[in-house]
């Protein structure tokens, strides 16, 4: 899933300070799962903004709504009429959601309330961790199912650097060295021989990528 975090309150307030009628729009998919932009977080942000405006003597009307998927124009179409009644939209979707919304609605400014940070999964301890960087040429079959592109700080695909200490990455003592994890997994799978193969530098993909689905 795509993992995002709510921006600092001061930044959000600054972004919408010139408006008096703002619609907060959440997304029911990834950001609901990672507890940053679902209906619940929309509720929390809306009431915080209302309280802050009130205490500062500002006029601010805040609307709320949440779609199943903000990154699909089909869902955005359904709020077109509602959105028309507001001066600006504060999107609690990921960066893709914000853009789909802005593109679809066209003439209402749409601002991000979240910082989109990575693709990843649940870490089993209530948090999330980055596990894929969408490099476009998956090499997980050679790395024991652990991605060095996303999980090694240097995205090394040919084995570790010399910087790991006690199995942790040189950039942070709180992060396991991806290659340490890969080695242990390959031992368990009986595939350590894969480490001896040299991986040529990846062909860097060109942004923006596109995927066409012919009928």
């Amino acid at each position, binding site marked *: 899933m795509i993992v995002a975090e709510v921006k600092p309150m001061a930044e959000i307030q600054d972004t919408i300070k010139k408006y008096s009628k703002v619609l907060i729009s959440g997304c029911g998919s990834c950001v609901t799962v990672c507890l940053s932009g679902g209906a619940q977080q929309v509720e929390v942000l809306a009431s915080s903004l209302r309280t802050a405006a009130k205490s500062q003597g500002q006029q601010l009307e805040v609307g709320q709504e949440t779609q199943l998927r903000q990154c699909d124009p089909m869902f955005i179409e359904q709020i077109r009429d509602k959105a028309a009644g507001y001066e600006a939209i504060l999107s609690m979707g990921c960066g893709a959601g914000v853009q789909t919304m802005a593109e679809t609605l066209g003439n209402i400014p749409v601002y991000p309330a979240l910082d989109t940070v990575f693709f990843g999964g649940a870490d089993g301890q209530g948090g999330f961790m980055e596990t894929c960087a969408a490099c476009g040429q998956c090499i997980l079959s050679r790395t024991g199912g652990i991605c060095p592109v996303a999980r090694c700080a240097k995205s090394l695909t040919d084995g570790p650097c010399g910087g790991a200490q006690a199995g942790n990455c040189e950039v942070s003592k709180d992060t396991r060295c991806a290659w340490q994890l890969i080695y242990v997994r390959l031992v368990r799978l009986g595939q350590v021989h894969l480490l001896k193969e*040299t991986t040529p530098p990846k062909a860097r993909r060109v942004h923006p990528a596109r995927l066409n689905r012919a009928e």
Partner: protein
Amino acid sequence: MGFREAVESGRFLITAEVGPGKGTDMHELLEDAEAIKDRIHAINVTDLQSSVMRLGSLAVSHILADKGIEPIYQLTCRDRNRLALQSDLLSAWVLGVKNVLALTGDHPVLGDHPEAMPVFDCDSVSLLQMMQTLNGGHDMAGNELKGVPDFFPGAVVNPGADAGAGLEMQLIKLEKKIEAGARFIQTQGVFELDSFEKFMKRVEGFHVPIMGGIIMLKSAGMAKFMNKNVAGISVPESQIKAMAETEDKARTSVEIASHLVKGMKDMCQGVHIMAIGWEKKIPMVLDKAGI
């Protein structure tokens, strides 16, 4: 005798290291290099060591070469993509720089510009392959070169990597580096001869000269700092104590280093002395070790 000839003749190799500073002042660096040039085969020039922005290793390598002091140009993958790496290599060649040490490089977040983009388009293994390809008259894309270099590439290994997975992976990667054309290997700083001897047993049969790394201690505090923060370094308690109790830190440091050089003479094919500002004491270290 040049460094390459020394390696090829099977001689016991001696290299040192200088680190360009922050700014354009090269006074001290050149003085240090001059002071030791007759006792060593080549001097490594570090490439923005510890990801701290400094004067470049290519320029300093070139200046040393011009003065008849043979440089080993350290080149990392941290700041350059494959276009820049290949171009800098060709530039090095036309500037008289022939020995290149291929390194992955530290992450920028460890240095003084932690916001900088980490490049790592290639790694140490592919950088070595790149030199092989250039030496063969082509670039990485297969285009023919007009005017072909003949680099003498080297690589590094960390013998003190965590026992188990860390060390096993270092050894596997070392084999890949040798396969990719590394002709000499310099190690991370070693302080303890017994464990280094064990490491050397593991690389028997790799058929590439291994130069044991020696870092000259400045103080007990520095030793403790490295033990805690530098991967693969473990300065034994006895050396920390000696540095703490001595009245002459330089003399004790020279004693420790020369003891290591002496021990390594029969274990490996050379030494790489990282004096970190005490370059002028290197001749003393070698004298004491009987070299």
